[in-house]
Each structure stands twice: as C-alpha cells, then as structure tokens.
C-alpha cells in the first residue's frame, strides 16, 4: 500500500457574502484521502464546490474549518512563507486557462517556478530545456503566451507544473478550454506522467474522458461527496456517518455500497414518519426471481440483472 500523500478531514468552507441569500457554504465537512501516485478525479455539477476543494487541498485557500495534511504536514496551520516552501516541494497546479504570465516567453514561464525556488540558473535552464523537449514544445520556447495556441499554452502550463518535480498535481478542468483532439493529447500526457513518473493527480473535471483517466472518481454535490466510483474503492474512506440527500423532488439517492448493505433495491414501507425523522422498513414479500425486463432468472441475492442490468424489483 502506497503512502498517504494527501488527507483532508472535516473540511468546511464558508464564503461570506452580503447578498440577500447570505453566506455561501461551499464545503460541508468533507473528508478525502489520496495515496502517493494515485489519480483521483472530482466530478460534480457547477457550483458543487470542486474548485474550492482543490484550492483548499493545495493550500491556496484556508478552509474555514478542518485539516488538510499534505505529505504528512498540516498545511492549514502553516505560516505563509513556510506554506509556500512546503507547497513548492510537493504540489503543482494546472488550471483551465493556462494562466501563463503574459509578459514572459514560454521558456521563462516554465523557468519561473525554479527561479522562485532559488534553483541556480544554469541547472534550471537545463531542466527547462529537457522539460520542453519532453512535452514537445521546444520550438515554441521563445514565443509569448499570446502567440501560443491553446494546446501549446496548456502544455507550457503543464511543463511549468512539472518542472518542480511535484509529487501531486492539482488540476482544475485541465482540458476545459481546449478542443477534443488537444484534450485527448493532454490526457495522454497525463496518463504517461502518471504511469512513468508516478505523479499523483487530483483532477477537478466535468469531462468523462478526464474522469476515466483517474483510478477513482469522487462525486461532489452541494459541498459533499455523494458517491465514489472506481475499481479500487476503499469502503473505510466512506464515513458511516454520511448524510443522505432528500431533494426537492422527493427523491432519495443511496450510494451503491449503502444500497448493497441495505439488501438491494426493493419496496419499503414507512414505519415511522415524524418531523425530521423517517424510518423505512423493507416489505418482506416474495421477490421476483426473474428479471422483469428480459426474463433472465436471478442468481441468489443478486440485486441487478446479470443480462440486461435492470434492477431487481
């Protein structure tokens, strides 16, 4: 089992606002952990709090409450200068727009983090040349950001993120502003980095393609994780004290593990309904042994049809 690189527990973040709606709660006590070399995607609708989470995890933003441990150290309690040092050594960011420095050439943009880190110029220049070469943008090294295409700009941004040899890359919609072809090549690059250099990724995205690249994806809604997808889901990551959301349409959604624990889908009767309290109980009648959709017989306690995937009624 790889070492735990990033661990956040009980993150809350409130944006104060003087608007009529009052303060906005962007993160509602969520917890997440990331191992060394792991790629995790955070998906969810706009306004779910994805970017806020990313900033909080990367130390760009101090959460209102909760702890973020990056490479074993609590970054929420660090002094600014110390935080910069720690971040510089562990993490890099990639944004939707390249966010390149407009007055510096591609090469100088990539060189800048090393300048900040105090790497001697000679060594830095060599590393930059190597990095540009690795990302295939050596020819565009002296172009200014405004002269770069979207893909080139994003590659430059990636080069800038990688140049400090970070253990973790936090990416916010890295393919959000490029065309699908470029997006694919960027994701291929991510995959290569992930595999070859064992860089850990935490990618915030809307894109299925990006989510596919990740080892697992976390679904964020209204400042909470509501689901986790992936091959390698750690159940213990999911706290037993989770909240469920009964939405305005009256729908209650259970995550797969809860559903499984409950014994699968079925009919439930309301046993007890009081203000702020609901108790459900399964109607223990004869369950159909055949899929209602395709007539394939269920095998034992199966909750889903093995043939067509329909849920057992």
């Amino acid at each position, binding site marked *: 089992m790889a070492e735990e690189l990033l661990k956040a527990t009980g993150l809350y973040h409130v944006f104060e606002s003087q608007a009529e709606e009052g303060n906005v709660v962007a993160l509602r006590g969520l917890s997440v952990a990331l191992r060394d070399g792991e790629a995790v995607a955070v998906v969810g609708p706009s306004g779910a709090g994805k970017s806020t989470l990313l900033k909080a995890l990367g130390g760009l933003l101090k959460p209102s409450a909760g702890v973020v441990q990056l490479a074993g150290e609590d970054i929420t309690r660090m002094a600014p200068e110390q935080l*910069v040092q720690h971040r510089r050594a562990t993490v890099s960011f990639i944004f939707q727009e390249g966010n390149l420095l407009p007055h*510096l050439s591609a090469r100088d943009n990539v060189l800048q983090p090393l300048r900040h880190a105090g790497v*001697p110029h000679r060594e830095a220049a060599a590393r930059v040349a190597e990095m540009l070469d690795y990302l295939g943008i050596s020819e565009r090294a002296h172009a200014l950001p405004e002269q770069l295409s979207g893909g080139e700009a994003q590659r430059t941004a990636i080069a800038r993120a990688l140049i400090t040899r970070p253990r973790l890359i936090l990416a916010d919609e890295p393919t959000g502003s490029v065309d699908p072809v470029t997006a694919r090549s960027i994701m291929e690059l991510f995959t290569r980095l992930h595999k070859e250099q064992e860089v850990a990724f935490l990618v915030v995205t809307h894109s299925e393609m990006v989510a596919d690249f990740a080892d697992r994806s976390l679904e964020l809604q209204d400042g909470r994780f509501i689901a986790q997808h992936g091959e390698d889901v750690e159940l213990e990551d999911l706290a037993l004290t989770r909240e469920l959301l009964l939405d305005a349409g009256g729908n209650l959604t259970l995550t797969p593990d809860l559903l499984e624990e409950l014994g699968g889908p079925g009919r439930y009767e309301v046993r007890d309904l009081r203000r702020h309290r609901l108790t459900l109980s399964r109607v223990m009648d004869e369950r159909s042994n055949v899929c209602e959709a395709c007539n394939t017989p269920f095998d034992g306690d199966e909750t889903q049809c093995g043939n067509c995937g329909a849920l057992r009624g």
Partner: protein
Amino acid sequence: MQAAAREFPDRTRLALLSAWRGRSRGLAVFAGVFLASLVITTVLVYGSGLMQIFFLNYLDDEYYDFRMDFHTDIGGKGRTVDVALWESYCAEYEALPEITDCAVAAGRQGGHGAGWFTEAYLKPQPLELQAWEGRDSDWSNVSVFLFEGNEEGPPTRGYRPLRLLGPSAYDGELAERHASRLLRGEWPDGGAAAVEQRSVSLPSQVASMADATVGDQLASLTFTYDTDASKGCQGEEVFWQQFSYCRVSVTLENLTISSIFDDTIVTSPITSQQPVFIPWELVPVENRSAIIAGDHAYLALTIDRTALPTESTDSAEKELDRIQRSLDSVALEGETDLDGTHVIKDLLSWLRIQNYFIQIFNYIVMIPIIVLSVSVLLYGLLLSLEQRRREIAIHRVIGGGPDALLRMVLGELGVLAFCAWLAGYLLALLAVPLILNAVGFMQFRPGEYDVSPSLGLLATLATLVVTVGLALLFGRSRTRDFLEQEISEGVQRVVVKPQPRYWLHWLLFGVGLIALADSYIESLANDGRLADDWEKGIISNPVLNGIFAVLGPFLLWIGGALVLARLGAMAPGMMQRLLGRTAALRDIGRGLRGSGSAEGVGKLALIMLLTLSIVTMAAVQGYTGMAVDERTASLAAGGDLKVEFQQPLDHAAALATVSVALEGTDVAASDIRLVSVPLIAMHPAGDEYSVYQTWVLLDGSREVVRWDRQAFGGDPGKTLDRLAAGGFSYGEQLEFSLGEQPQLMLNLTGGAPGQVTVSNVGEHTWHPGLDTDITAGGIFIGEASFRTLVGDGAVDAWRETTWFVELGPQGDAEAQSAVTRALAFDSSVSKVTSWDEEHREVERNGGLVFGTLGLLTLQFAVATIAAVASSFVFLSLVLTQRKRELAILQAIGASEWQVGRLVLFEIMSITVVSMLLGTLLGVGISYAFNGMFSLFGLIFQSFGGASTSVDRTLVWPWGELLVIGLAVLAVVMLALVWTTARATRSDLARILKGE
C-alpha cells in the same frame, strides 16, 4: 549573497524585460516619476543657476579679488611704515601661481576681520575728497558730498571716496579691468605714464556734474586720510559715531582727467561708492608712509577669474578660501604680517540671504506642480498595480513567496522609476539655462552670463531618493496589500473599501473658498470697483490674512479638485440624461448609465482638473507678472523717457534738447511729444494754513504718460477726462481731509490772485514717473483748472525740470536706448530714465519676484504636457480595464461603431466637463494665489528698496487657454481612437476567456 550575485544577471534581465513588455501599464508610473524628477531637479538647479548669475553679475563690478591688509590694527605688531618695503611686497605675491596681478592701493582702512553689521565694521574710514577746483570748467557746484551716501548700505561719512593706485594697476590684469569700464578716454599705459600725465579717472556722474571731459584739468584736489595718532595727532581730530580719528589733508595740483568710467553699476548694499582714481605715486612719500601707517594702504590682487569654479558659489568660495590660505602663508621681509581677504566674501553672504528668500518663494510657487506630478505617480502606480493583481496570483500559485514577489515587483518598478528619474533629471539640466533666460512668460532672451548650473552629488541623490523612493515606497505598500488580500482570500474577508473622506474634501474646499473670496474682494477694492472699506478683504487680521494668503490657494486647489472631480466623473450620467433620447445616444444610453464607477475614470477626472487648473493659473499669473513688470517700468519711467534737466526748462527748450539727441535714430523730431507735470502749491479758500502740493496733469499727459488702471483704481481715461473737466483727485494721505468733500475751492498760496473750484473725482494711487510717496500727500488737477488759475501765458511758458517724452511710432527699444545715451552726455541733463531699460532691468532682476516668470513658464509647460500625457496614459489604462466589458457588449451584438461611440461619449464628456471645471478652478486659484504673490511681491520690493507695491490686476489669456484646451482635447481624441480601436479589434474570445 553569492547566490544572489549569481542570479543577478538573470533577474535584471527579467526585470528589464517585464518592464519593457509591460510598458503601457508602466507609462503612468514613468510619467509620474519623470514629472516629479523634472520639477524637483529644475527648482534645485534653477536656484544654483540664479545664484551663479547674481554672483557673476556682482563679480564683474569688483576690480580686484583679494586685498592684503595688516594683520593687526594700528599700533600692533608686524606692521611697517617703509614705503619702499611696502611697494616691494607685490613681487612676493605675484610669485604665487594663482595671482595674476598685484598693485599697491589705498582707500578704505583695513577691517581686520570685522564682521558685517558689527560695530567694528563702521570704524574703517575711506580716503575722502574734501574739495576740488576746476580749470577748464566750473567745479564750484560739484559737491564732494554724496547725499545718497547714507541711504544705501552701511553708514559712511558721506564724502566722495578716493582710491590711490600703484604703478602696476596701470598695466596687466588690473589695467584691463579698469579699462573695460571706461566710457571715455584711455586708461594710462603703465605706471610711469599715469604719473607723467598726472592722471585722474572720474566717475561719469562727477564728470557730468562738472561738465568736464577727457583732457580737462583740475587745478587742485584735496583729500584727507586718517593716521596713526599714537604719537600725537599732526592733523585735525574728528569724532564720528563713537570713534575718534586724526585726520590729515593732502592737496594735489594740476591733475588731468584721463578717463571717465561708468559708475551706474548695479550695487549691492555692500559695494562702496564709486571713487575717483589717482596714481599712488603722485602723493608725496611722507604722506604715503602716513597712509600706510593709517591703515589705508593695502595690496590689490587679482586672480584668473575664468579658473574659478562656477558650478556653485560654494565651490567658488572654497577655491577663494584656498587661495587666501596660500596668500596668508607668504612670509614677508621685515616680518610684516599681512592678511588676505577676498573682496566678494561679504557679497556672498548678502547673495545667500537674498537667494534664500527667492528659493522659498520658488518652492512655494512650484508646490502645485510637485503635488501634481506626485499624484500622477501615485494614481499611475495604483492603476498599473491593479492590472498586475492576476499576475501576482499566478506567481503565488507557482511557488512565489510573498517576499520574493515583493522584490520582483519592486525590481521592475525600480528599473522603470530609475529610467524616468534619469530622463527627468537630464531634461531639467537642459531646461534650466532656458528658464534662466526667461524675461517674461513664455519669452526668452539670452542673458549676458553663460552659466552651466548643475547639481552636487548629494542634491542629485536627494532627487533620486525622493522620486524613485516615493515610487518604491508606495509600490511596496500597495503590493503588500495585494499579497495579503490573496493570502486571506480563503476567509474571504469582505474588503471594506474605506469611504473617501468627503467631509475633508469639502472642508479644504470651503477654507480655500474663503481665502479666494478674501483675495477677490481685495482685488476689487484695489481696482476701485468696490468701496475702499473692503480693501482689507473679509479677513482683516494681518496674521490670519497672511496664513490664508499662503495656505488658501493650495487648499482651494486640492479641495476643489477632489470635490469637482466627482462632478467630472458623473459627467457621462449627466450627458445621458441630457442627450439620452437623441439619436446620438438612444441605442447606447443604457451602456452609459453604469459608467463612471470605475476607479480609473474618477482618477482621470481628478488629474484633468489638477492639470488644467494649473495650466490656467500659470498662464494667468504669467501674463499678470508681465503686466506687473510693465507697470513697474511705467511707474519708474512715466513715459518712453523721463528726462530730468539740471535747470527748469520750458516746453520749447526741453523739446530742443531732446530733438538734438534724436540724431542717428529713426525718430523724427515732429513725432515726439513732451509733457511735464507742473507742481504748484495751493490752499483751500479761507484756510491759508492747509497747503496742498498740487500737480497739474496737462492735456498732453494722456498720450505721453503711460497710465494704467492702478493710477486711479479703474479706467484712467475716464478719470483723466473728469480731471480735465475741472476735477481734482487726492492722495492717500489726504483721504480723511478731502475724501468726503464733493468740491474744493482752491487759491494759489502766497497771496497770488488765482482761484478755482474743482470737484472731487476720487483718490489717486500714483502718477507714473513721479515719486509715489510724495504724490500720496498731494492733489492732481487738470489743465483747464490750471489755466483758470495762472492764465494761458503762464501755462505755455511754464518751466519744469522733469519732462516725460513720447518718442512716437519709431520709439522702439533701440531708439530709446540711443536717445538715452545721447542725453546722458548732455550737460543740461542730470538723469534719463528709459522705459525699455527700466523694463529690461525689471525683467532680468525679477521685477516683483526673481525669475518667477521663468518658473511659471515651466509650470505651464509641464502642466500642459502632464495634461496631454496623463489623458493618454489614463485613457489606455481605463480602457484596458474595461476591455472585457467592451468585449461583452460586442459579444451581445453591439457594433464596433456603437462601442466606439459609447467610449467616445463617456470619455469625452468626462474630459470636457473636467477641463471646464479645471479652468474654472484655475480662475479661482489664480485669484487666490494673487494674494500670496502680492505678499511675496511686497517682501521683495521692500528688499529692493521700492516703496510702492504694484497691484497685480489679473490678465486673462483666454486665447492661449483655448488653444491648450483644444490641444488636450485633440490628444484625447487621438488616444481614444487608438485605444478604442485596439480594444474593439482584439480577439473577443480571448478577452472573454480572460487571457
């Protein structure tokens, strides 16, 4: 440390690169530092240049540079009475490389280190002339007593001084210096020739009084010297002040006038009266010995003045001190101990005091422009750093620590500010000689001295520290703000922008308005448009009035700009309300409604107000200053010329004399007109004891005399009409006795039969060309009343000594000067004052305040440039800030033309309204500053010895202001077209994406 050194080239390259690539946003910073550096350096360099000019000017008036006196007072050690030994000492000093000439001389006794204004300073006495007798002309009326002797400078006994010059004063450097001042005749060629000719050199005033010319002989000349009375006084004992002297007289006979020199030099109070020069060797040896013993003798030394450092008076003084030390170290035969004094030492201390006052005033005058340049700098920084907010955020994300980022921003700022400082500094060095040549507002004439003013290392560093330091200091606090904001972004503390202190703005404005009202009311009262009761304005306490006069204008200016800028920034909204329903704005009205909120727009309005008000003020005060100079010249000269004759002459005789002097000029005798101001004594009918000195303003005086509004407080033509129609005006001192009397019945004094009734036309302040103090105690009447009194015959044959001359259409400066020269040598004329020379004198030596017009010209030029440059810079910054907004408008369907029109209307309305308000504010501060200018004018006039303060009635150069206004508008238009085109043509998608 080593690492820092290693990284230096890369970091410098990056700072330069960023500064260059981000030049458009850095332009405002550059402009601000540049202006601040230009102005501050100029004022400093100007001060040193002015000092040099004064220095060189006064230096020219001195014949020699050092005098060597006995170290001890009479009776002390280390002295000699041996004439031959004394005369041999010059050779010792001439052996020094610095000394170019040395001559034995005798004149005023040695001071032995007595300080200026100390008691001991009064003690040394000059060689004094007691009597002279002419052979070729009548010298009996030529007084050896100088009446003006006690009026200027330290008290002297008031007799014309004499100076004895040794043989080497008649060759070499000393001879050259004397020869250069001669008007007529030749400086004797060598000491032997001087003795042989029995040469005497006279000041032109003496020659003119005696009607003597070169070659004439003096039968005798008697002078006195004070001698060592320790062994009993051989002459007459004299007491003067608290000192006693033993005075011996010597008479020389058969002297020949060999030359006449110009004695009309500009004298500071410390330059002594112009002496008569006679060879030392004409005096018998025993007298010479007594003169040496009496401390009158000294050695006159010259140095190579061109080798004297002129970059500052301090360095000149240092060099002189050095030479003085080497002179003092010369060992002399007979153990005689001589002390060197450089003769300009006292001059320098006098100059310093004078220059000190001038500098204070100049700094005050330049305060607005310094405030302006600093505000351009600060607002420029604010806007340009605002644009870097995102960039700083990116740096933070990629690992830039707060300190490193601060260093980076300041590095860039430092590079930019340094370049701007250097540019401003160099331009100032180039501009100062031009400003020193200013003889009027926007008028220049090369002066006689070629000065190359420069700034010492310390002062240079000071300008660097002040300008670049200010930029870095402000940049640092602002960048810190950004860094802190970003760090605390997490908590998203809602940044509450401090509300501007509007109450303070209004308070400043209000106090300024009171000062303005005070100054305005005073000017109205002075101009006769308001009752005299208002002459002191609304603040009558002199101390309070002074404080208001000095501070009021600044408060009005800053407070007014802050208050009115809000009005300027609201202009687009007002425009929209006015024109919103017209075709021009109907489709873009909604876009206009929200504007005016951007920080940059408010700043643009403020800068426009600040600059335009200074432009207005500088132009108004500049032209007013020129008018004041002219008025001052008129006050002194009266007409084109003021000719004072030795004897009273009638019109025909005066005209004849002046006509003769016209020879060689283009002026025809038929063109000239002369008028005098007959002075008679009158008393009111029935009251023989109240005698009024009465001046008659003849009808011709209207054309000949240069009248102006201040003479009668209002239109002089009207008052002259009423005087001619049987009126009288009274001087200030008669206000209580005559002010309320509507009519006055006057009789000639001494029982003469004439009687006339005149009606009151009000108070007069002065008559050009007459002494204001005297006319303040008398009355003026017209020619008709005069004729009634004394009859036509007496009027037509009236004789006066002072005549005012108008030279007609050809009477330009050159003609005036030629006629003045010709008249000066006429024996019947005692003094000629030409308006043009008087004017030049006033222009050059400051008139009211030295060199202010040059500085106002600078202020005008700098403010104009600032108006143009800042409109350009701020526009492009404002539009860059709004690029996104404009792109959105385009994205939702606005055409380029509509967006262009929107920007045009918005910016133009702000600019036009701010410019109009700025001009209005300028009118206000012109009035307000007038109080301060008058105050300082008074100080400088009293410094210069003038008794009348010349009113500063404002002159309004609307034409020039209109041109400036149009020029600024044209530049704004150009900048708008350029920046709008850039904004609307750039890649919409990219802007909207936020790249």
